[in-house]
């Protein structure tokens, strides 16, 4: 009952004209970002981080939630009509979505995708609401050893799930932890790696690092690619209505995608992307017509598109309940909160209820807005792809430069932006994922404080830090999750 009352309070906050406007702006910007290949939700959130300085913290969070959800909606449009995924979580939609469009069912694919995203988004917010509040209550019992355990387990999962080479992911993670050590030590006030520069005393700022790695590096990567645009498949308004058979075949994939997406969203790493692949494989396995997959099966659009939207809700759970971001996009959200002087964590719900419940309520509103925006305006959003990259890229760089400078009026931040932009570009081309670095930079200082406090409390006895009911369970669950897949494979091989 409490949850319902709190949600009503959240709707009061989210339904103010200003917040409604930010939700709409976020949904609109997010859809555009989702449509544009190259500039993903993460890059755009990083670029727009500095713009939120003049906003209320709640409005800023509402704006970001709109962008994140909008990008998931928008990404499907170009996948279906152009065979170009607007962002990574829409790659799977290309397989059957574009085939459907070629067969004249593009409109139906767009509608099913939007409705599926809406249902999944709404269901995942219900999940977020209950899971986050329960987890936040439990987290009040957490001490430094538990927070260290969550941080460590989160980073280990991130390395395993980020894709690419594990050894390269470990290196990027350690690089992030190293950058997180820069600045004044929290416990003793000792300056570390500041080279006498006052601007580094507060540590390496998150904003120029995120903007460099995801903004400037993305611009450089896009500039290095060929500028080719395929033929856009046109969809008439009357074609947007799916047939009864298509609705019927989509219902279960949408529900399954919602559940899968939400739970995968709880895991560290690129959860929206992983959820689409898992959902696609599940639907193919369960389908009565697996041969249709790859040839334009509606289930291949409905499942993954629902899953990536549900994963967004799941990704918010650890952030809202524990203050620990498990995905790079959530790290940007933490950056935005910190810019407003708010430290996310279990106390957020009690100390800033308007923010916590306002954001959740705005997600419901944002989902309705996105449904209204995306179905009839899909063709219009695709036209955005006609803006020449030669014009778009310098404007994005300008936004990054002025955006970073505007926060601290610091030239050092601008150098960090440029340096990390170049580093991000080079490292990405060689298969080094930037996500572990960014997350480690955010989680690292929290983990360091938790580790040192734990060691001081237990007089250096690590076993007392590990063998505690909650911390021990966290380590055990993580160990089981990591060891289960290779062990199952081993047993299966042994059984043959």
């Amino acid at each position: 009952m409490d949850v319902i009352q709190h949600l009503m309070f959240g709707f009061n906050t989210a339904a103010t004209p200003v917040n409604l406007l930010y939700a709409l702006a976020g949904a609109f910007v997010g859809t555009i970002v989702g449509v544009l290949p190259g500039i993903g939700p993460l890059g755009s959130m990083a670029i727009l981080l500095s713009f939120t300085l003049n906003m209320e913290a709640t409005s800023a969070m509402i704006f970001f939630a709109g962008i994140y959800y909008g990008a998931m909606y928008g990404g499907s449009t170009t996948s279906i009509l152009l065979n170009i995924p607007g962002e990574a979580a829409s790659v799977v939609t290309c397989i059957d979505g574009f085939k459907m469009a070629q067969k004249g069912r593009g409109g139906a694919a767009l509608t099913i995708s939007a409705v599926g995203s809406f249902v999944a988004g709404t269901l995942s917010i219900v999940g977020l609401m209950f899971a986050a509040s329960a987890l936040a209550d439990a987290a009040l019992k957490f001490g430094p050893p538990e927070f260290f355990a969550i941080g460590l387990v989160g980073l280990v999962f991130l390395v395993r799930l980020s894709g690419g080479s594990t050894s390269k992911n470990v290196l990027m993670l350690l690089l992030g932890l190293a950058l997180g050590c820069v600045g004044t030590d929290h416990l003793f006030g000792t300056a570390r790696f500041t080279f006498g520069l006052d601007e580094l005393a507060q540590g390496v700022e998150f904003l120029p690092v995120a903007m460099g790695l995801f903004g400037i590096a993305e611009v450089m990567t896009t500039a290095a690619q060929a500028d080719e645009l395929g033929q856009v498949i046109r969809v008439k308004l009357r074609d947007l209505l799916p047939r009864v058979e298509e609705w019927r075949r989509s219902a279960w994939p949408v529900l399954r995608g919602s559940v899968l997406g939400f739970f995968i969203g709880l895991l560290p790493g690129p959860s929206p992307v992983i959820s689409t692949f898992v959902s696609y494989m599940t639907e193919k396995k369960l389908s009565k017509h697996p041969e249709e997959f790859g040839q334009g099966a509606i289930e291949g659009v409905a499942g993954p598109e629902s899953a990536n939207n549900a994963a967004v809700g799941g990704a918010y759970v650890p952030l809202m309940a524990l203050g620990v971001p498990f995905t790079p996009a959530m790290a940007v959200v933490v950056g935005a909160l910190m810019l407003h002087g708010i430290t996310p964590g279990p106390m957020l719900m009690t100390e800033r209820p308007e923010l916590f419940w306002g954001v959740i309520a705005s997600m419901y509103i944002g989902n309705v807005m996105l449904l209204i925006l995306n179905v009839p305006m899909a063709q219009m959003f695709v036209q955005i792809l006609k803006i020449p990259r030669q014009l778009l890229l310098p404007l994005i760089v300008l936004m990054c430069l002025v955006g970073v400078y505007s926060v601290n009026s610091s030239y050092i931040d601008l150098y960090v932006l440029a340096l990390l932009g170049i580093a991000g570009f080079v490292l990405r081309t060689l298969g080094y994922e930037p996500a572990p670095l960014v997350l480690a930079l955010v989680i690292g200082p929290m983990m360091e404080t938790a580790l040192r406090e734990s060691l001081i409390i237990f007089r250096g006895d690590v076993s007392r830090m590990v063998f505690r009911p909650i911390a021990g369970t966290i380590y055990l669950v993580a160990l089981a999750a990591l060891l289960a897949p290779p062990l199952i494979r081993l047993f299966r091989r042994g059984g043959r």
Partner: protein
Amino acid sequence: MKDRIVALGFVLFAIIFLAGSLPLKVGTAARPGAGFMPAMVGVCLLVAASYNLFRQFRTPVSVPAGEASGVRLTPWGIAAATFAYPVLLSHLNYLVSTFLVMAAMLLLLRFKSPWVSVLIALAATLASFLFFGKLLSVVLPSGVLEDAILAF
């Protein structure tokens, strides 16, 4: 080849980072000092970077298709413009430095004719100055030009 150079760079960074963390007070497990975490990260980084370097030198050097045809200059031009910006900003203030960097990037990316690029750079500079300086009240490096526009 690039892979090996980057792997070597990681090892060098790890050595420098570890060396930098040792003069800080590392302390003991019971009383960890300011250098405790940096030293721990430094050791792990050195091990991981060395392993990565070993792996890179074990795999044969392959030249990707894109690399064989030479380095694309456009992304590096953007990188140079980004690096030049803080230098220009500290000497020439907001309007001139932003205009120069924008014009350079548009010319580099060959957007329409040079004149169109210059005009767009000018418009973007003025629009961003009014947006950030006037609307968002960001304190941008100002001189005579900026003051004149704000007064106008």
